[in-house]
């Protein structure tokens, strides 16, 4: 009997080493250790043994059973680990395939630039003011020191609705609305659409966007204007950006200036984009004309102010290197998708 038991152990071990499948392992367990298994069958024959032999054989049988069970458990763990590894290997992905998340929409490049500018101004304590696009002559011209028949009206080709109602040619009209309704200190910007009868081409559009900036307070000087412009443009274009002011004329500011920035394209060396000048014109600025303050009921002897107007299209084109203004209004998805 002892011999039989040892043979069973040997056979079980031999079989076990060949098994690589979980089901086969279970079959083996049943074959050797099950209720009708080989080991059980032998144990049943123990009744015919002598009282001396029975404990010895019994011990041996139990030991063999325990050993086989142990080995089956170990083998099972090995098989499971191998199977799991194989599964993981089979599940390998090409992680360089594109993602499939829902597509995000995009903000128009002009609005992106506008929000950046608005956020800078909000941070500097400027409210955002609004005014009508279809406007009275008074707000667009007359209150801005451009009386009827003023020659400077010709520099802004105006769309008219009636003799007295027009499409605003400049966001400066909002200055008047603001100053009529609020007493200094005033710090506002006013972004919006303006209209001039320039046919659409690569650099002109009958509709474009300006961002007006107005500050009125005691002690505002031209130096404050210079400092504010410098800070603003450094925040927009980076610390190394360089500007220069040139005397100019706007009826609603005195002194007036045009502000140039070192050419985005050549960095000041002179190229075709800046016509060899090294600078490109960026915006118009100046000290609010005393007559304009007075027109709004603000005493120019007490208060002074500055104003300037940024061109959103020009800034957007500069920022992204867009060379044709029409792209901004064409709304081709292949264009909009780039920003």
């Amino acid at each position: 009997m002892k011999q039989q038991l040892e043979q069973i152990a040997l056979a079980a071990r031999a079989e076990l080493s060949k098994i690589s499948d979980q089901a086969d392992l279970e079959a083996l367990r049943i074959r050797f250790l099950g209720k009708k298994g080989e080991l059980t069958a032998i144990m049943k024959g123990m009744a015919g043994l002598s009282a001396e032999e029975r404990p010895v054989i019994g011990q041996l049988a139990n030991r063999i059973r325990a050993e086989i069970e142990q080995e089956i458990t170990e083998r099972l763990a090995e098989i499971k680990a191998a199977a799991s590894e194989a599964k993981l290997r089979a599940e390998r992905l090409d992680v360089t395939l594109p993602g499939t998340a829902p597509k995000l929409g995009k903000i128009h490049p002009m609005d992106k630039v506008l929000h950046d500018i608005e956020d800078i101004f909000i941070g500097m304590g400027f409210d955002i003011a609004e005014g009508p696009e279809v406007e009275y002559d008074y707000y667009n011209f007359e209150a801005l020191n451009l009386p009827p028949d003023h020659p400077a009206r010709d520099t802004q080709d105006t769309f008219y609705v009636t003799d007295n109602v027009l499409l605003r040619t400049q966001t400066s009209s909002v200055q008047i609305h603001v100053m009529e309704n609020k007493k200094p200190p005033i710090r506002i910007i006013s972004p919006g659409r303006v209209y001039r009868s320039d046919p659409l081409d690569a650099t002109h559009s009958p509709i474009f966007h300006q961002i007006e900036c107005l500050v009125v307070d005691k002690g505002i000087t031209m130096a404050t204007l210079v400092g504010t412009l410098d800070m603003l443009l450094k925040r927009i274009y980076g610390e190394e950006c360089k500007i220069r002011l040139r005397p100019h004329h706007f009826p609603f500011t005195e002194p007036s200036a045009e502000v140039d920035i070192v050419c985005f394209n050549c960095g000041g060396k002179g190229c075709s984009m800046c016509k060899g000048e090294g600078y490109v014109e960026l915006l118009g600025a100046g000290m609010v004309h005393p007559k304009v303050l007075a027109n709004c009921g603000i005493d120019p002897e007490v208060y002074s102010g500055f104003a300037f107007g940024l061109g959103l299209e020009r800034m957007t084109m500069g920022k992204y290197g867009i060379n044709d203004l029409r792209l901004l209004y064409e709304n081709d998805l292949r264009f909009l998708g780039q920003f």
Partner: protein
Amino acid sequence: MDLSMKWLSDYVKIDVPVKQFCYDITMTGSKVEGYETEGSEIRNVVVGRLLSVTPHENSDHLLVCQVDVGKESPIQIVTGANNVREGDLVPVALDGSTLPGGVSIKRGKLRGVESNGMLCSLGELKLTTHDFPYAIENGIFILQEDCKPGDDIHDAIGLNDTKVEFEITPNRPDCLSVIGLAREAAATYKIPFKTPSPEYLGVRGDINEQLSVTVENQKLCKRYIGGMVRNVKIEPSPRWLRERLRASGVRPINNLVDITNYVMLEYGQPMHAFDARYVSGRSIHVRTARDGETITTLDGAVRELSPEMLVIADAEKPVAVAGVMGGEYSGIMPDTVDVIFESACFDGASVRRTAKKLGMRTDSSARFEKGLDPEGCMPAIRRAFELVEMLKCGEPLDSVIDCRSETPVRPAIPFDPDWINGFLGTEIPESDMVGYLKQLEFELRDGMIYAPSFRTDIESKADIAEEVARFYGYNNIPGAELTGVANAQLTPKQKLLRNLETACTALGLYEIETFSFISPKYYDKINLPADSKLRNSVVITNPLGEDTSVMRTSVLPSLCEVLSRNYNFRNPAAALFELGNEYIPTEPGKLPEEPARLSVGLYGNGADFFSLKGIIEGIFEYLGIDGVEYEAAAEGCGFDELSMFHPGRVAVAKIGDKPIAILGEMHPAVAENYGIGTKTYCAKLNVTELLDVETAERVYKPLPKYPAATRDISLICDDEMPVAGLEKLIRNAVGGVLESIRLFDVYKGEQIAGGKKSVAFSIVMRSSEGTLTDDQADAAMKRVRKALSGAGAEVR
């Protein structure tokens, strides 16, 4: 304004290269747009003398010339022109030369005969007979200049000036002149400058015996000086004068006319010359036009005059439109004997209006309309007489008629250096300020500043500050920080617009920007009814074209245009939005309302009505607006654009009773109008009106402690019955324990009778007070079944 650098050098010597000059004068306020050296495209062209001209052996129309070009031996050139003779001096483009327009000339053979260059015509040098009246247009330019073979052509014909183009702002008409710019240039370099005072001898004679001048309208004519030149000799002007006109962009005509133009360019004062023979009665009347009067102007056009226009008339008829253009009839002719010179000051606004109305803006009107200085009239006419004597082309009378209204008083502006420094934020010494101002001919007297009369733009302290600043240097003004406390925030509308933008991009939409004006035809394209109030737009009276002639009353046509454009660009799918205004007319003469709108458009990528609706629902969810109800849109739904949608696939979103959005599938006929060959979906949302909608204040609700009971229900009802109605019935029947209703199936077809549909909901109920018992759930469902059958639905 084009400035000849040669001309400028008569008045101020500039020692720096022209590029530097352009920069420096720009930085003191006279902006240079660019400069051009005359004839810079012409290289290696010299004067040649024709030693012999012989026929070509193989051609009837070619000539072979031996040309002395100042070298040891002559060169041979073949020419096709037939106006050349032995001994002529001509421009010769040598081998390897270039001509205007990028033409380059190389040695070659013409019909077998070697040619070592080209003889040039006026046109090939980019000149005309106006520049050289003795030459001809069709043929070689035979030079009548003082030059010799081998001379560079630039020097030989005086093609060596540099033209600087200035952008003069409208407040500085004084700078539309050589003298004005010379004064600015001198101030830029701090060189002494003296305004010239022209001198002439004149012949004795009483002008009043020759001419009478009556200014009938003194408001529109502040000064009128009439002078006379007798026994004129009309001929081309000398070369130096023609060169200067040419460099200034003015066409030479004849000596008398050229003198008036020369004076205008030099002094900034427009002048006019009349042939005295055709000034009837030799009397000049400065008056407004009479009803029905016409004039044939110098350009040959017949102009109808209207009573507000100022004219120069003789005893009978207008002979010039004051400050704009002269009449053809009284113009200077080759046989003119006596000439009347006019140097006058007309009202700027009046000239501007007249020129605009007649549609002719001239160099003269462009100067007058900016407001000229009456004091400029006398030096100008004196300069004209000086030139007449210099050119020996006539005899100016030594007296003139000068009619003027009272001299304008120059404003006295307090000189307050502290105020100027305070205003500019600078510390400029008073002595420097005085220096800048004196250089510009400002007068300082008793603490007051008086600007020279030609500086009509100077009115106040701020103007003085600008004069100081531009010569101190704008870029020398230090930057100062904007100080003081200020707080700022977005307005509710601005916040809403930003939220909408965020929601739309999160929902996969691309933002677009379209024009606010459209064509009235766009209303037809969206099939808008003929009587729709949306067809009443704000109309632009002077549009660029019909396409941009009315302010839009709906944002949807612009959106459709962009969808159509993208479809035509073969972009397979589009999902777009725009935040833009509509312009709704109010009362006549009043401003329109400008409500903000959101438009959304989709096609492709499986878009259907429900993907559009999902986006609109998503937007409301993002904004925190609850209780939006959707119903099939019908006439009177609050949106006239209903016409552009498929009648069975369009909904109106309402908040309470208020229609807030329309959304639907584009009508096939409208899609055809736009050339869109795929199903397209559009929506419009009234943004301004959303500002009045209360958004729900979000308050934390504890997470559920007790389990939910879920019951499914399936029913059959008429196809017409909207699902939203069924849902409402269920909601009311379940009552307070309702947590959510989810529609999970709508079915029409086999096993369902025609005109019916099967609808299935999953209903989740939960109590916050304890576990819901089966009895409680069943009782709720019993109420649901009852309510549904009551409404005609059959519960399965």
